[in-house]
C-alpha cells in the first residue's frame, strides 16, 4: 500500500494568466518540495484534467525520459481513482513514486460544457440528449436530485445547509476562492436558477489552477520497492489505508439505470471500509466530491454515513458544518474553495491529518474518508490516516 508524502498547489482563481503545463509544473514542484523528493528520483506520473500531459510534466519538472505514466478514466472520479492507480503502479514495481497532478484553466480556458464532451458515452449524448437541450452536469444531476426529493422528501433547505456549510469553512481557508465572501441563506435563496432545483450556489465553482499529490510505498509494505520510495519516505507520510473505485449500473446512461441512487460509491465504499478494517463511524471527517449540493447528501447516504433518505436531515442538523458530528469539506470543497477535480479534497485530508489546516484544523483528525464522483456516477472512496486502535464497531460512534 501507499502513503501520501507530499502535496502542493497553485493559487486558485478565475484567471490564472498561465498555461496549463505551467500550472501543472508549479503544483508538481510544490508537492515534490513538500515530500523532500528530487525530480530526478520521480519515476511515475498521472496527469489529470483533460489538458495536461506527461510530456508537459517531463518538460516542466525535468523528469526522466523513462518516467512511467498511466491515466484513470476521465471525469470527476479521476482524482481519487488515481490513488488506486498509483497504488497499482507502485505495487507492481512499475514506479517507486508517483506524482498525481491536475491542472486546468477551468474558468478562463476549457469550461465544463466542453470538458463534458471528453467523457465516455458521447454517442448517447449527441443522439439522445443534446437534441433535447440536456448537455451539462448541472442539468444531468438536477434530475437525480429531483427524483430523490420525490422519493425521500429531500428539501431545498437541506441543500442550502450543504452550501452554507461549505462557505463557512471557506472563511477559514485563505486559499479558498470564496474566502472573505460569506454566503447568507437569503443570497442562496435569491440566486439565479441554473437547472431546477439547482440555483447558483448549489453548483460548484469553476477554477483555474493546479493541485498535486505525491505518493510512495508505505514503509515496510514492499521490501522490493524502487529507490524512490525510500528516498521520499518521511515522518509526515499519510497512509492510504484503502482506496476503491466502481462504476454505477448502466454507467454511461442515467435514464435507464434501474435504481438512480445506486452509484459507483455504493459498491466502492463498503469495499474500502472492509479493506481498511474500519466503519463509517470511525471516520473523523469526510471530504465529499461536491460538484452540486445534493451530491454531498447522495454520497453521504451511499457511503454509509446515514441511511438512504436520511442525508438531507443529517445535513440540515448542522452535522457537516464546523463543530458538527461529521465535518465535511473543511476547505470549502468544490463549492467554495475551488474545482480542482477533487484532488484538493485529497490535499485537505492530508493537511488535516498532519495537523496543518490552520484556523480550520479539526480537534480530532486521525482518520478521514475522501470520495470521488463523476461521469454519471462513477464513484470512489479513499481512507487516509491511522487505523483506530480498537476493533471497529459498526454503528457505534467514536
Amino acid at each position, binding site marked *: 500500500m501507499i502513503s501520501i508524502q507530499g502535496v502542493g498547489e497553485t493559487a486558485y482563481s478565475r484567471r490564472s494568466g498561465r498555461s496549463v503545463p505551467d500550472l501543472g509544473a508549479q503544483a508538481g514542484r510544490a508537492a515534490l518540495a513538500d515530500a523532500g523528493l528530487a525530480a530526478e528520483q520521480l519515476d511515475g506520473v498521472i496527469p489529470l484534467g483533460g489538458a495536461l500531459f506527461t510530456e508537459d510534466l517531463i518538460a516542466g519538472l525535468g523528469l526522466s525520459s523513462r518516467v512511467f505514466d498511466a491515466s484513470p478514466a476521465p471525469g470527476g472520479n479521476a482524482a481519487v481513482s488515481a490513488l488506486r492507480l498509483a497504488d497499482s503502479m507502485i505495487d507492481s514495481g512499475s514506479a517507486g513514486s508517483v506524482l498525481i497532478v491536475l491542472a486546468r484553466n477551468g474558468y478562463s480556458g476549457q469550461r465544463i460544457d466542453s470538458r463534458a464532451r471528453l467523457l465516455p458515452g458521447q*454517442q448517447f449524448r449527441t*443522439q439522445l440528449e*443534446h437534441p433535447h*437541450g440536456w448537455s*451539462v452536469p448541472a442539468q444531468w444531476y438536477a434530475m437525480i436530485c429531483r427524483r430523490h426529493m*420525490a422519493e425521500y422528501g429531500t428539501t431545498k433547505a437541506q441543500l442550502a445547509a450543504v452550501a452554507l456549510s461549505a462557505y463557512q469553512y471557506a472563511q477559514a481557508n485563505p486559499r479558498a476562492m470564496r474566502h472573505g465572501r460569506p454566503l447568507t441563506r437569503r443570497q442562496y435563496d435569491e440566486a439565479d436558477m*441554473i437547472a*431546477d432545483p439547482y440555483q447558483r450556489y448549489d453548483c460548484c465553482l469553476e477554477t483555474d489552477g493546479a493541485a498535486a499529490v505525491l505518493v510512495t510505498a508505505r514503509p515496510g509494505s514492499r521490501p522490493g520497492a524502487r529507490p524512490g520510495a525510500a528516498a521520499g519516505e518521511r515522518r509526515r507520510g499519510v497512509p492510504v489505508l484503502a482506496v476503491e473505485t466502481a462504476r454505477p449500473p448502466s454507467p454511461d446512461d442515467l435514464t435507464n439505470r434501474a435504481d438512480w441512487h445506486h452509484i459507483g460509491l455504493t459498491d466502492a465504499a463498503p469495499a474500502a471500509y472492509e479493506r481498511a478494517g474500519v466503519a463509517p463511524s470511525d471516520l473523523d471527517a469526510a471530504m465529499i466530491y461536491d460538484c452540486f449540493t445534493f451530491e454531498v447528501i447522495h454520497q453521504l447516504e451511499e457511503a454509509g454515513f446515514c441511511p438512504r433518505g436520511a442525508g438531507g436531515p443529517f445535513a440540515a442538523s448542522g452535522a457537516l458544518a464546523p463543530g458538527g458530528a461529521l465535518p465535511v469539506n473543511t476547505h470549502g470543497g468544490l463549492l467554495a474553495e475551488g474545482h480542482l477535480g477533487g484532488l484538493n479534497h485529497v490535499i485537505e485530508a492530508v493537511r488535516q491529518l498532519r495537523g496543518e489546516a490552520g484556523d480550520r484544523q479539526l480537534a480530532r483528525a486521525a482518520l478521514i474518508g475522501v470520495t470521488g464522483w463523476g461521469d454519471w456516477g462513477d464513484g470512489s472512496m479513499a481512507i487516509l490516516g491511522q487505523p483506530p486502535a480498537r476493533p471497529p464497531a459498526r454503528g457505534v460512534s467514536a
Partner: protein
Amino acid sequence: MSDPPFPVTDRDPPFPVPDLADPDFAPFWQGCRQERLLVRRCGRGHLSWPPRPACPRCQDLSQDWQQVDGAGWLYSWTVVHRTPLPAFQPLTPYVVGVVELTAHPGLRFLGRCQCDPRQLRIGTPLRVTFEHVTAEFSLPLWQYDNEPQDNEPRDNEPRGA
C-alpha cells in the same frame, strides 16, 4: 399533427441534429419520421433502451426493433434556465424530463416536455408526440396525456394543462 409544440426549426445557430446515419440509431430515427416510437428487442424478447451492442439483461446479440406505445409518466425532470447550447437559449426556461413507459416498466426516454414548469410532479401522465424538425429529422417530445389509459387506437391530440 397540429401546430408544432416547440419552435425548434428555422433557428440560427442550427439545431443540434444527431448523426442520422449512425448504425445504432438509424432505425430509431426512421421510426420517428413515421411517428413510431421504437426500442431494441433481443432474440429472447427483452426490450431495452438505449441501444447497446448486447441485450443488457441476457447479453443476446441478435438485436431487432419493436414499436412501443407512447404513453408514459414523468419519472423525473429539470427546468433548464441556463444552457450552453446556443439553439436552446431562446427557449429557456424549458422542461427536460425522463418518461417511463406505462406499458413497459423500467423503459425510459429522455425528452423535452411541453409542461407548465410550475405544475410538474412525478407520475404526471405524458404521451409522445413527434416534431418534424427538418425534412429528414423528427424528434420525439412529450405532452400531457389526459386520456384514459387503454389500448384503443386514438389520435395524439395535445391536451392543455
